[in-house]
């Protein structure tokens, strides 16, 4: 059972199936409650995590998510880093456009997730993979 009491508490989940997407959601929810995010912010970070975990699975061909408690000295927060070694994203601007999709979805995963978090960083290289880091701070 995760306790999240250590300052550098982090937990890594492999994302190789649908079930793992559910697991990421549950882990993020547990930590979001532990760092006392508001209910709306909990909902936003869990939703963003769900979108990005599915992207890691569907577009990245699987990978992992590292969920950790962070602190910037003034307030606590939650950070999730999604990493895959998939094909990478050739046109990032296009991928971040609402409604653009290559996978038959609604094209809201990446652009929508970005709107739901406070910090969003993406590092991608064609042929190497994609790493996305999202952070939500307590208010």
């Amino acid at each position: 059972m995760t306790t999240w009491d250590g300052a550098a508490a982090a937990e890594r989940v492999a994302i190789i199936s649908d079930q793992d997407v559910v697991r990421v959601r549950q882990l993020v929810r547990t930590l979001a409650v532990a760092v006392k995010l508001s209910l709306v912010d909990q909902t936003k970070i869990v939703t963003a995590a769900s979108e990005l975990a599915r992207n890691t699975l569907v577009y990245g061909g699987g990978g992992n998510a590292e969920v950790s408690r962070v602190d910037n000295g003034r307030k606590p927060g939650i950070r999730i880093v999604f990493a895959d070694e998939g094909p990478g994203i050739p046109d990032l601007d296009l991928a971040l456009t609402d409604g653009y999709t290559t996978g038959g979805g609604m094209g809201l995963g990446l652009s929508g997730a970005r709107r739901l978090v406070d910090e969003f960083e993406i590092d991608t290289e064609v042929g190497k993979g994609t790493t996305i880091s999202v952070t939500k701070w307590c208010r």
Partner: protein
Amino acid sequence: MERVPVLKIGDILLVSIQIDMEDQVALQLQEDLADKIVVTGCHGVIIDISALDIVDSFVGRTLATIASVSKVLDADTVVVGMRPAVAITLVELGLSLPGIRTALNVELGMKLLAQEREQYELDLEDEDEEPAVSTR
């Protein structure tokens, strides 16, 4: 794999999603509902999502597809019980769920379906009463 049960109550199919669904479970529900609509001839579907603490784009899209498929099979769908935080998050995500009827709870959802059905049947009667178009 878990399965979401579909209950028949009178002329309505009621689905209450109580689990954190894997994507496959959501797709299975979509198929089960389509089958049940045809088998039972029900004209209304109520999907209760009050137990869901998130609705992401996949579940949102599945709900929209269920509503469209039901419509083609002559049944109306109402999604009920969405939590306020879920509504806020969905809109910010960019999903406004066009084409999906919503109600605050199951009871109001049933009322909405009953009204729609009544209106639909009235419209049918009106059409019957229209005089045949004369041809010269």
